[in-house]
């Protein structure tokens, strides 16, 4: 074979992908080396690194909770519900304006902090669930047999609809989310120094994830959701009301978003009608990272994204000499998404859906 023939046989896309891989790996290695051994950028001590990691973990817990809604709905309908970020926003807004601010003004917040958190969470969860069930019933169910692009565009429309409904209801200002004083400050657990709210977020999100996983695996309703995700016609033949199972899926995803909304309020201490967009996109990224359609995947993807986003910029980007690396969280997150889509489109633990669902 002559050289020119060999050259013609090379698939240049593969070559480009390999070059891309090498560049990314080199970048990561060089960045970390320069950071750790040559002291590039700001110097951090070990407690700073632990702080980055913990805040990443807690942010990841929030992403994981929201990501569940994306992944479960995708599991049963093969549809990306872009309005899911708005389910999260609606819970945060309604619980802050209607419950939290009233209870804070009356002083109840510090007299009964636990009851306060319970009431706020109930309000957030109920609002998120109500908004999601309305969206499912009115906007998505009539389109169940439409081509897949149609519900996708409808979801984007529903997202705008809810944003402006809540802006109309509560105004466009930033509103403070009242946090009980008992949750301010730091706490030391196992020799690690946590911001109290960060610790709460990590614990609650892990518990909620485990609870959801057990629900889907063990209960009759959970099994009916899995059956509907596999084959709607056969599930119906088993006596499963498919519409109801789908509505339940939306409600459970929204419940997790409602819990995330309160935790988000505790960490960031403010709400606004547009707050659903970025967490929604990040959680969607997390769901794709883990393998969309998979519940453990969404959990793993969420924590993974949170940690990479928090640790990546100081560790890798500062090492590479990027200016203002701590502002490059979002770049890191979406770069990760692009990398996953190129090199492992099925996600960390996802199955090859395209093959199965085609």
């Amino acid at each position, binding site marked *: 074979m002559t050289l020119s023939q060999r050259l013609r046989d090379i698939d240049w896309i593969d070559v480009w992908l390999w070059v891309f891989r090498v560049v990314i790996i080199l970048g990561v290695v060089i960045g970390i080396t320069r950071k750790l051994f040559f002291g590039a950028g700001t110097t951090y001590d070990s407690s700073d690194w632990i702080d980055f990691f913990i805040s990443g973990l807690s942010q990841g817990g929030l992403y994981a909770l929201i990501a569940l809604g994306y992944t479960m709905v995708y599991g049963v309908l093969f549809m990306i519900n872009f309005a899911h970020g708005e389910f999260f926003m609606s819970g945060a807004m309604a619980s802050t304006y209607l419950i939290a601010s009233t209870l804070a003004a009356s002083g109840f917040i510090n007299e009964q902090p636990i009851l306060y958190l319970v009431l706020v969470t109930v309000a957030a969860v109920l609002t998120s669930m109500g908004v999601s069930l309305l969206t499912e019933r009115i906007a998505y169910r009539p389109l169940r047999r439409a081509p897949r692009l149609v519900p996708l565009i409808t979801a984007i429309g529903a997202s705008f609809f809810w944003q402006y409904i809540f802006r109309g209801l509560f105004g466009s200002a930033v509103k403070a989310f009242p946090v009980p004083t008992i949750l301010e400050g730091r706490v030391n657990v196992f020799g690690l120094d946590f911001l109290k709210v960060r610790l709460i977020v990590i614990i609650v999100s892990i518990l909620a994830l485990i609870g959801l996983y057990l629900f889907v695996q063990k209960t*009759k309703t959970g099994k009916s959701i*899995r059956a509907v995700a*596999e*084959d709607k016609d056969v599930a*119906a*033949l*088993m006596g499963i009301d498919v519409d109801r199972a789908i509505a339940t899926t939306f409600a459970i995803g929204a419940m997790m978003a409602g819990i995330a909304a309160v935790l988000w309020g505790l960490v960031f201490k403010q709400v606004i009608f547009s707050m659903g967009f970025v967490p929604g996109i990040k959680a969607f990224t997390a769901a794709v990272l883990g393998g969309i359609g998979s519940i453990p995947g969404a959990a793993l993807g969420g924590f993974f994204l949170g940690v990479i986003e928090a640790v990546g910029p100081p560790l890798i980007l500062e090492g590479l000499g990027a200016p203002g690396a701590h502002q490059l969280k979002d770049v890191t997150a979406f770069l990760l998404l692009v990398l996953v889509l190129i090199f492992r489109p099925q996600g960390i633990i996802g199955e090859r859906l395209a093959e199965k669902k085609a």
Partner: protein
Amino acid sequence: MTTMLELNDVHAYYGKIHALKGISLNVAKGEIVTLIGGNGAGKTTTLRTICALMRPTSGAAMLNGENLSNYKASQLAAKGVAMVPEGRGVFSRMTVLENLEMGAYHRNDKAGILEDIEHIYALFPRLKERRGQVSGTLSGGEQQMLAMGRAMMSRPSLLLLDEPSMGLAPVLVEAIFSTVEEINRQGTTILLVEQNALMALQIASRGYVLQTGEIVLSDSARALQRNAMVQKVYLGIE
């Protein structure tokens, strides 16, 4: 004998395609009736219409005198109708045991369900060995057994089977068909859709021949076996 299932001049469309052009058939209580025909004859469409997965454009499927199109597909299990779909339709990411439990989804008698699971294991010992296994990893024959066992879990009075022999080795086909006979002996009425006319006519008491959406022949299974057209087209006898 009392008529259990009756189709009366049923028409159905897939978009613009006229898939069923006036199907009329009946199945009496306790019978095995077979519906034979080639690819695209409308066999699966007939079953989907009975199960309310498709609506007939005219005509009706009646079960014990009730019009089935008044129900949703998910209500039929409670009416005593179960189907083993074409290609088996097992929930491949669920375990064998979970699949069987899904078959009993509309039931609430825990003790009875456990008893029936044991009964299915007795009928198909292979399923017991593999109860904890994810069913996507089962062989084709095992999946067919699972699909039949799952359908039996609803304690159906009418069992619809859509090509249970598809893709199975001859020895397995024999085993499946003798189980179908066994299920029938235990009191379940069966409507069996098959391309494998030879096997189907051996266990059925009566048969219908379906061609491009129409029933062209109906007779006792024995008479159909001797029919010149059936022999030529479906049994491969010249």
